[in-house]
């Protein structure tokens, strides 16, 4: 996810002229209701269905099965006993073993310790309810009629569980050490990565804003590169750099890259630009008068740093920290590739659903993963509210002074960070064009023959571009219209605040969770929206929703910069709102709209987590292909596809820059 677009919001200023509710307002209300409904259908409802799925449990209902056993002749039958009674007598199955998953089976012979499969004894079994089910071998039987089997067949009888509602899944989760361990692992990895990333990002942003080091624009560009690649790619690069056949394997001094080390390094790589851009924004609003005051008070450099620089940027730092924490704990691609045996929550969801078809447990892990993400989000929002405008009208922009030692130091550090980023990308590029690493290093293009591999081939690449374009187009329209309703509509305070809340929610919902929730909600023939399941439409809806928040905030920021007087003037000139909207608002906000579009495009190209459950055979995506090819062990083609995504995003960025320049010349001349 790309949070980098989020700028700090200036508090709303200027007075609003209260108007009579007019036809215009009703139209606006209608639009708002439509977009609000979109968010409910695309976000709130699926999450609710998923929550209820996590409470759907499977348990062997022993009271629902009755048995009868014959004597040696097979003609005289003993008393009817239920499995529950037998279990009470024998204690054959412990209570904890009775709760199971949807695939659970329990051998009927467990209740007959004297059972011998070659004996002439016959057995009868029936359900006491119509839906009590058991299997004879692989044939499913249900119903309350007695069925009789010889002992050879009865050996093959297994009971099937009944489904009900309860917290049993959560109990199972917390009593399975491997699963519960993942909570600890995920939080630990996220915390370590946050500390490391924020330190590096702060140092870089500090160097770029407070020193006179050369090539600042270039470094800025290089440091944002990781946004353009899927998080799987640093994982693949690390395998080639530090894996068992890695170029720099010795640097790890015997430690394995597969596990926490790889996760932290990779996480720093893909979260760095997010943290860097937020802190850069925070640091660049500096008031030179504070520094002058510090200098005239003869404060040391260190004291100035701790009492002026850091406090000024503290909200940016906190915000960046939460963004990094959320990104790492919800990321799925990186730990999937480089995590080895180190369990992480997001990977657990994938394992449960794709590996074991245990949808209920997948839902449980999703609910658990929601907790830290929502917590981080709430705390961050609280902090944001306390931020006050630092930049007053009388502020004097800070201009760094030359300081040879300081400038060299900052320059060296920025070089190091750039080397790290470029090195990872270069490694992937090399891996993508080498024939058979590490044994045959001749160059080849065969790793780009995606059609011969798992994952969907070149069609997947085409699908990704289609998804990215559609997401950018529809996403920009929906998001901007929604933000306009929130910001510029008059009245309906309550409706607007609910809408705003819904728009902020996607930020706290991890992609895996959203994707899984979509399966539960849309893959249900009773749902009127069922036909979009397995189509490109659901991928677009999911991707727009997944990245809604940041785009929404960007649009909001742009709209807040527009004086509300425009509305008042338009109203007093009796102009309908749509004329104002298309003639003034949209052209003025065009740079922001373009930013939203490119943001959605780039993220739709790189996202894996939400769509990994939703793609169908004819809508496979390039980013998912990277995952699947790596999964199958075809790492070089995976790297090749990752590089294709990278180049596409670079091209998109360039086109965006060109369009932006052309349009800005035409529409922003007033600025």
């Amino acid at each position, binding site marked *: 996810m790309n949070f980098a677009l989020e700028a700090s919001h200036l508090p709303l200023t200027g007075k609003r002229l209260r108007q009579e509710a007019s036809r215009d307002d009703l139209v606006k209300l209608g639009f708002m209701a439509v977009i609000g409904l979109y968010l409910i259908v695309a976000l709130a409802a699926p999450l609710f269905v998923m929550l209820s799925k996590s409470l759907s449990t499977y348990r062997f209902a022993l009271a629902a099965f009755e048995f009868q056993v014959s004597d040696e002749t097979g003609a005289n039958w003993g008393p009817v006993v239920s499995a529950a009674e037998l279990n009470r007598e024998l204690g054959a199955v412990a209570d904890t073993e009775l709760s199971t998953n949807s695939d659970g089976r329990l051998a009927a012979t467990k209740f007959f310790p004297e059972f011998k499969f070659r004996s002439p004894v016959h057995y009868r079994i029936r359900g006491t309810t119509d839906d009590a089910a058991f299997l004879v071998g692989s044939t*499913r039987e249900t119903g309350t009629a007695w069925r009789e089997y010889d002992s050879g067949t009865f050996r093959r009888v297994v009971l099937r569980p009944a489904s009900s509602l309860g917290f049993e899944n959560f109990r199972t989760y917390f009593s399975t050490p491997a699963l519960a*361990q993942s909570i600890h692992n995920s939080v630990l990895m996220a915390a370590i990565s946050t500390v490391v990333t924020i330190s590096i990002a702060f140092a870089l942003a500090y160097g770029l804003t407070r020193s006179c080091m050369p090539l600042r624009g270039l470094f800025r560009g290089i440091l944002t590169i990781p946004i353009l690649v899927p998080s799987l790619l640093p994982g693949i690069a690390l395998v080639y750099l530090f894996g068992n056949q890695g170029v720099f394997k010795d640097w790890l001094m015997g430690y394995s890259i*597969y596990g926490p080390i790889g996760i932290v390094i990779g996480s720093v790589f893909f979260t760095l630009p997010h943290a860097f851009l937020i802190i850069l924004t925070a640091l660049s609003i500096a008031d030179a008068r504070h520094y002058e005051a510090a200098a005239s008070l003869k404060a040391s450099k260190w004291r100035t740093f701790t009492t002026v620089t850091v406090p000024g940027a503290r909200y940016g730092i906190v915000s960046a920290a939460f963004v990094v924490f959320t990104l790492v704990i919800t990321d799925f691609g990186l730990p999937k590739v480089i995590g*080895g*045996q180190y369990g992480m929550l997001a990977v657990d969801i994938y394992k449960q659903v794709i590996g074991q*078809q245990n949808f209920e447990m997948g839902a449980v892990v999703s609910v658990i993963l929601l907790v830290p993400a929502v917590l981080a989000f709430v705390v961050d929002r609280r902090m944001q509210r306390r931020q006050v405008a630092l930049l007053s009208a009388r502020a004097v922009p800070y201009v760094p002074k030359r300081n040879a030692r300081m400038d060299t130091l900052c320059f060296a550090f920025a070089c190091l960070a750039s080397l790290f980023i470029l090195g990872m990308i270069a490694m992937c590029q090399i891996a993508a064009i080498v024939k058979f690493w590490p*044994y045959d290093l001749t160059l080849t293009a065969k790793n780009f023959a995606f059609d011969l591999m798992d994952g969907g081939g070149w069609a997947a690449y085409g699908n990704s571009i289609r998804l990215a374009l559609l997401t950018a187009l529809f996403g920009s329209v929906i998001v901007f219209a929604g933000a306009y309703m929130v910001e510029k509509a008059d009245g309906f305070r309550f409706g607007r605040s609910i809408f705003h809340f819904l728009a902020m929610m996607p930020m706290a919902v991890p992609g895996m969770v959203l994707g899984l929730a979509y399966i539960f909600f849309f893959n249900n023939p009773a749902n009127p929206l069922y036909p979009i399941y397995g189509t490109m439409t659901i991928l677009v809806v999911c991707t727009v929703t997944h990245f809604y928040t940041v785009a929404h905030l960007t649009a909001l920021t742009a709209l807040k910069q527009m004086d509300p007087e425009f509305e008042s003037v338009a109203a007093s000139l009796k102009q309908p709102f749509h004329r104002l909207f298309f003639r003034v608002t949209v052209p003025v906000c065009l740079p922001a709209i373009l930013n939203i579009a490119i943001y959605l495009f780039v993220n739709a190209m790189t996202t894996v987590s939400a769509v990994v459950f939703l793609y169908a055979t004819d809508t496979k995506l390039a980013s998912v292909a990277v995952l699947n090819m790596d*999964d*199958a*062990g075809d790492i070089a083609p995976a790297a090749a596809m990752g590089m294709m995504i990278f180049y596409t995003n670079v091209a998109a960025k360039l086109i965006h820059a060109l369009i932006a320049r052309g349009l800005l010349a035409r529409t922003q001349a007033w600025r």
Partner: protein
Amino acid sequence: MNRRVLFLLAGAVSAVLPAIAFAETQLTVYTAIEAVDLDRYKATFEKAHPDIKINWVRDSTGVMTAKLLAEKDNPQADVVWGLAATSLLLLKTEGMLEPYQPKGVEELDKKFVDNDTPPGWVGMDAYVAALCYNTVEGEKLGLKAPTSWEDLTKPEYKGHIVMPNPASSGTGFLNVSGWMQLWGEDKAWAYMDKLHENISAYTHSGSKPCKMAGAGEAVIGVSFEFPGAKAKSAGAPIDIIFPSEGSGWEAEATAIIGGTPNLEAAKTLVDWSVTKEANEMYNVGYAVVAYPGVAKAVEHLPSDISSKMIDNDFEWAANNRTAILKEWQKRYDAKSEPKS
């Protein structure tokens, strides 16, 4: 509307009509066969039956199984052609398969056909557990190639073996269920306890261990024969070893999804899937096929693989899967801290 448009329309209609008159039946076929084989299988079948068209829906075994189960109440597939028999058994226990006795099924090796009459599924070919051993890395480390499952527990292999996770990979599970059927449950668990000490990673997919061994990321990959042969052709310095105790295996199989509106065409496809011709087609990649006497040796693989296969009880494996995986995860997943 002017004359020219009308003329064009008439032309278009007459061009479409014959196509409707000879309309083929379209079959939606779910599969997990290799991506490279899709076109070949489709072309060979459609040559034999030009009136039926196959629309492939392909994904890995786990995803395909999940998809079929998710669509249980509203199946989209007509036929499943090329999915693990264990997965098809799972669908069978959910009552999702249409039992059908294909013409000529009696020619097939019994172990490739479902026990019930009429059978729920019929087999195509087998993939057999095998070890991929990287000779270059082995030599560097001064190791000798293992010849048996028992060898893998030797201390010198510590940290050099990768194996698929049975909880997420069908290949992983066929190994575990194979050991249990070979040695009995208790001995198999004792063996896995020792083996676990030597494992450096449990992978998600079944072919990855072999490819990791091929790339030198591991020395020994517990996998199956097919990716081994493929990696070797691509230039990987590996030996494909079939352990002396015997190998677990899985059948790729075919079944009709219950309630399909195209039952006749589906039956035609399943009938064809058991023919000698079809089995010769499977044999291009797979060394063991269901039709006896058809199989010719596949490059890089020994010709007597079928003699290494254990007597696999699919039903036992399917009905004990949940319990085995629960125990497996309890024993080995908990130790999820990485080993350095």
